[in-house]
């Protein structure tokens, strides 16, 4: 096993062990843990192991590693008094605009945005409800003097209470229903695009593009069937539906580290990249060694040269004042391609394509 894989496995084991310990602690030594949900718990632990291992491997790739280090150094720069206020405002603005509203997807296409936004928020709210309940970190208890009220306990500590037969009670107990409806809307919009868009059709793959949608749809529909069973059908087939729902969720959790859902964990890099670009814009600019125009930040070009060398690329130009092809701007690279070919034809004796 390579050093990278050993490191990644160690990190994955550590994170899984910490999560397991937190489950035990948060559920008051499993007192508040619902044994019926043990399958979900082990699938979550497996997902935590797989995601951390893949994440750790990903971070060790040369280009990712450099962004990871630079990202954190920029992040800590945020806390220097000179930059703190402005950077914190920018940080939260990006968090809201880019992540909560996914405004960049809106600009790519309204239908695409709607599909993503409903799926994302449906899945996030469902996760925010499900995981703490499964881990026993949150549970509901009746109040002794008034059985018509429920109190919410968070890691064993009593918090707010609410009447069971109330609007807030209805909303809380049906939180997963609202999430499921959002996910179904998002999935159907995404499927509509995938079945009609010629560009998408030519590139899509079952495992990468359809399977995640089918899984989310299956989780949501079986979840809604559970609600339908106990609300309107006197619990008809409830046990079977509960097992079916568990299978869809557990399969998704086990698949989480391997497929498209991994982008949920990768996307956080977007904020680091945005700050990296900000810092680059404020710093020295790299001038193209052919046209003399600025084309990127000096920091970015130096980092890229280092990354390319680590990857085994040799774009050095030892006998030229340019030193490295990376110091040529993209526009000049395109022009050079034409000039190089043109010079071959010009030098060709008695042959001209023109």
């Amino acid at each position, binding site marked *: 096993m390579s050093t990278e894989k050993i490191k990644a496995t160690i990190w994955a084991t550590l994170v899984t062990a910490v999560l397991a310990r937190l489950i035990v602690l948060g559920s008051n030594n499993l007192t508040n843990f619902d044994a019926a949900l043990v399958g979900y718990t082990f699938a979550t632990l497996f997902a935590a192991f797989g995601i951390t291992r893949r994440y750790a491997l990903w971070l060790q790739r040369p280009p990712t590693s450099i962004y990871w280090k630079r990202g954190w150094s920029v992040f800590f720069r945020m806390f220097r008094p000179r930059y703190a206020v402005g950077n914190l405002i920018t940080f939260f603005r990006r968090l809201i605009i880019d992540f909560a509203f996914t405004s960049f997807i809106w600009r790519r296409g309204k239908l695409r945005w709607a599909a993503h936004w409903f799926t994302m928020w449906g899945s996030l709210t469902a996760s925010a409800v499900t995981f703490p309940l499964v881990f026993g970190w949150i549970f509901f208890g009746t109040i002794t003097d008034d059985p018509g009220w429920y109190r919410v306990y968070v890691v064993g500590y009593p918090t707010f209470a609410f009447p069971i037969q109330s609007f807030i009670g209805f909303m809380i107990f049906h939180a997963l229903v609202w999430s499921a409806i959002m996910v179904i809307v998002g999935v159907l919009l995404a499927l509509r695009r995938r079945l009609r868009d010629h560009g998408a059709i030519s590139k899509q793959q079952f495992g990468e593009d359809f399977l995640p949608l089918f899984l989310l749809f299956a989780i949501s529909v079986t979840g809604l069937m559970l609600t339908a069973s106990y609300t309107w059908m006197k619990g008809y087939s409830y046990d079977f539906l509960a097992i079916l729902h568990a299978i869809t969720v557990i399969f998704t959790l086990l698949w989480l580290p391997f497929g498209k859902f991994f982008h949920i964990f990768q996307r956080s890099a977007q904020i680091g990249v945005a700050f990296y670009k900000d810092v680059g814009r404020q710093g020295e600019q790299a001038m193209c060694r052919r046209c003399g125009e600025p084309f990127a930040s000096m920091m970015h070009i130096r980092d890229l040269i280092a990354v390319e060398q680590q990857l085994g690329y040799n774009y050095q130009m030892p006998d030229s004042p340019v030193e490295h092809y990376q110091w040529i701007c993209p526009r000049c*690279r395109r022009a050079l391609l034409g000039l190089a070919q043109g010079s071959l034809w010009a030098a060709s004796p008695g042959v001209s394509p023109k």
Partner: protein
Amino acid sequence: MPVHDQMEFFIDPSRCIGCQACVQACGECDTHKGVPMIHLEYVDRGHSTQTVPVVCMHCDSPTCAEVCPADAIKKTADGVVQTARKPRCVACNNCVLACPFGVPKMMTDFELMMKCDMCYDRTSAGKKPMCATVCPSGALFFGTRERIETMRPRGTPVNQFQFGTQTITTKVSMMVPKYAARIEHIDVAAAMNEGSGGKSISLNILTAVYNAKDEA
């Protein structure tokens, strides 16, 4: 469905007349609707009409994909380097700056890198890329090797490019003259000191106008 292995893309910038037909057609491609991915570059706008159409060369070992921190650029089994995967691309600009051919485009509004994917919706269905379909001068040609060799007996396709000490092999070939000794690669970096040659503007129209005015 993969791109048919008999069908290849050949580019010949020296035949380009700068008509922009490829740019307009490129925007019609379903994989990047409305946004042309081809570059039609003026080599030296002030002094020459020489233009270069630049499509993705689909490198065997794509630098853009290797330097991508998000692992967003993938090459399909048929050798086509696809545009960035939308869920993964973090708009870092690494690919734009690293591509030795200057191909990827950063779409800042979309926070997404987009690039030529050889009209995968068309080529994977046995059709030509949009740009090659409309190019009137044959600067962009998509077809069999036999066909191009018949059509251009004085030229030969080369798919190796030299950038300093780095050699890059590509799926797309460029037409070069057929010398007695075969050209193994095109040394792109060696053109650093080349000026735009064959299509220089030599009429000096503006100077003539000013001179005429002065004389009047």
